[in-house]
């Protein structure tokens, strides 16, 4: 009796498995969706072979939606609006979508299979994003937990970006990571240098990508990134500019200041760099040089917890205490912030209190 039950279960399981296998084979070999049209933003039309995911097809056509998991449906970054032809929403997508996104036809591009003509909507600036391959030509320790990486571009050989923008760096699968991971890092070099970029990267505890960069990446390695992204850029006015950034948040500020220097800016510029101790200061010589070269630039490094018996002669405490001293007219000032969310939140409140309009406070949320 027991044996016959086992045999029956075995046969049913076997048939089920065989049918599932048959379906997979049929799907991959027999299913032919022919040529499909992807209409993007009601402007650009792509004729593609159906059968792959929307994310893959867009990538193959050099349209790079953000993705941190390589299309496995585990990061939820590759959202886009599918207006027509996307098929039903899948259970693999729903965990990543808010209710209003579901109502507005937002989908995960990696989970939408192109089987028919399809209409989608994506942000227009995505078209400027490219995938780059580069060679790491220099890795430099700037502090005990911050490195500067210089990447020479090999394909394509040049990049066009605006000072303040960021790229998405791809860390491959490595010893401590089960899959490639992608993270956003601001470019610290000037946009006038088109054949290489520099990134400034702080090690994040438990961080998959920063651990790769700090412990595994070597000079001579080939790396991949996409970009440029972001609207944290210099506004085209003659207002005074106040920069406030700590840690690796210095990266986009260097890019902006180098650009302003090269292009002969006459704007009044102040940069507050908040750090804990002298160990956290870096590239001080560069800012001293910029103070000499720029028409009106002041660098204000400030230590919140200088070591006892330190020979530090500069400002101490928090930069918020010094903002009013350096900002002449809040109405004529733009503030550019980059750093930890805690710092941005605290500084933003202080800037509003000293009459800088919220419309003139800029920072990158890396979304």
């Amino acid at each position: 009796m027991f044996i016959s039950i086992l045999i029956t279960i075995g046969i049913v399981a076997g048939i089920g498995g065989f049918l599932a296998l048959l379906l997979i084979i049929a799907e991959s070999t027999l299913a032919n969706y022919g040529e499909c049209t992807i209409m993007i933003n009601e402007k650009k039309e792509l004729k593609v072979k159906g059968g792959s995911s929307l994310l893959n097809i867009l990538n193959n056509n050099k349209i790079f939606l953000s993705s941190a998991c390589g299309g496995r449906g585990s990061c939820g970054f590759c959202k886009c609006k599918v207006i027509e032809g996307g098929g039903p929403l899948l259970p693999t997508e729903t965990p990543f979508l808010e209710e209003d996104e579901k109502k507005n036809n937002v989908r995960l591009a990696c989970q939408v299979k192109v089987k028919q003509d399809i209409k989608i909507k994506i942000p227009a600036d995505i078209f400027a994003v490219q995938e780059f391959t580069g060679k790491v030509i220099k890795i430099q320790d700037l502090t005990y937990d911050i490195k500067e990486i210089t990447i020479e571009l090999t394909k394509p050989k040049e990049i066009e970006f605006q000072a303040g923008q960021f790229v998405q760096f791809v860390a491959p699968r490595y010893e401590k990571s089960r899959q490639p991971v992608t993270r956003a890092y601001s470019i610290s070099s000037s946009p006038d240098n088109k054949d290489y970029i520099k990134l400034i990267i702080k090690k994040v505890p438990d961080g998959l990508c920063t651990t790769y960069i700090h412990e595994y990446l070597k000079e001579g390695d080939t790396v991949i990134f996409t970009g440029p992204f972001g609207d944290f850029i210099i506004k085209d006015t003659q207002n005074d500019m106040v920069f406030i950034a700590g840690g690796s948040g210095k990266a986009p500020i260097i890019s902006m200041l180098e650009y302003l220097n090269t292009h002969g800016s006459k704007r009044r510029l102040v940069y507050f760099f908040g750090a804990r101790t002298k160990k956290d200061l870096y590239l001080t010589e560069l800012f001293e040089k910029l103070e000499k070269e720029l028409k009106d630039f002041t660098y204000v490094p400030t230590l919140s917890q200088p070591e006892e018996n330190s020979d530090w002669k500069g400002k101490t405490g928090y930069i918020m205490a010094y903002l009013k001293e350096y900002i002449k007219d809040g109405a004529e000032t733009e503030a550019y912030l980059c750093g930890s969310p805690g710092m941005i939140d605290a500084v933003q409140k202080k800037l509003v209190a000293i009459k800088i309009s919220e419309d003139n406070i800029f920072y990158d949320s890396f979304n």
Partner: protein
Amino acid sequence: MKQTPQEKKIQENMQPGVITLNGFLGNDNRHYQDIIDEDRRTLERLSITPGEIADRLQYFADLAWDSYDAPIIIDEFYQVEYKSYRGKIPCPFPHAGRYPKGTITLKNLNCGKEICWTPLNIHMIREHCFFEGKGSPHRIEPSEVMKILFK
């Protein structure tokens, strides 16, 4: 142990190198559901709910957030420091929403004991009663939490 595809996915997300470098299970070889069940029994014995613990963790996190990433003293004998980092991470339990990267370290100056948690920990405790596996860097031991956070 038979698992649903959903449970398999959650167990996989908790491994090192998937969402975070060290994962969520530490050196605990138990299934995540067994960890939750045991911690839930501990909470019942202590007559406290996951929501109450999450509220207390959130209370310290909110006050420390306003100190601009510097250590502050809260309620006389809690030294708390919130270190925030750019970016957000998802929960290993699949659902919408991502949680800020950061660590909150609290030292009870009376007993000298210290615990460290993340914004994601607060969510996982409140919504999933998940305190992470033993040996995980952000494992919050329910019985210890009572001694450190409420006394």
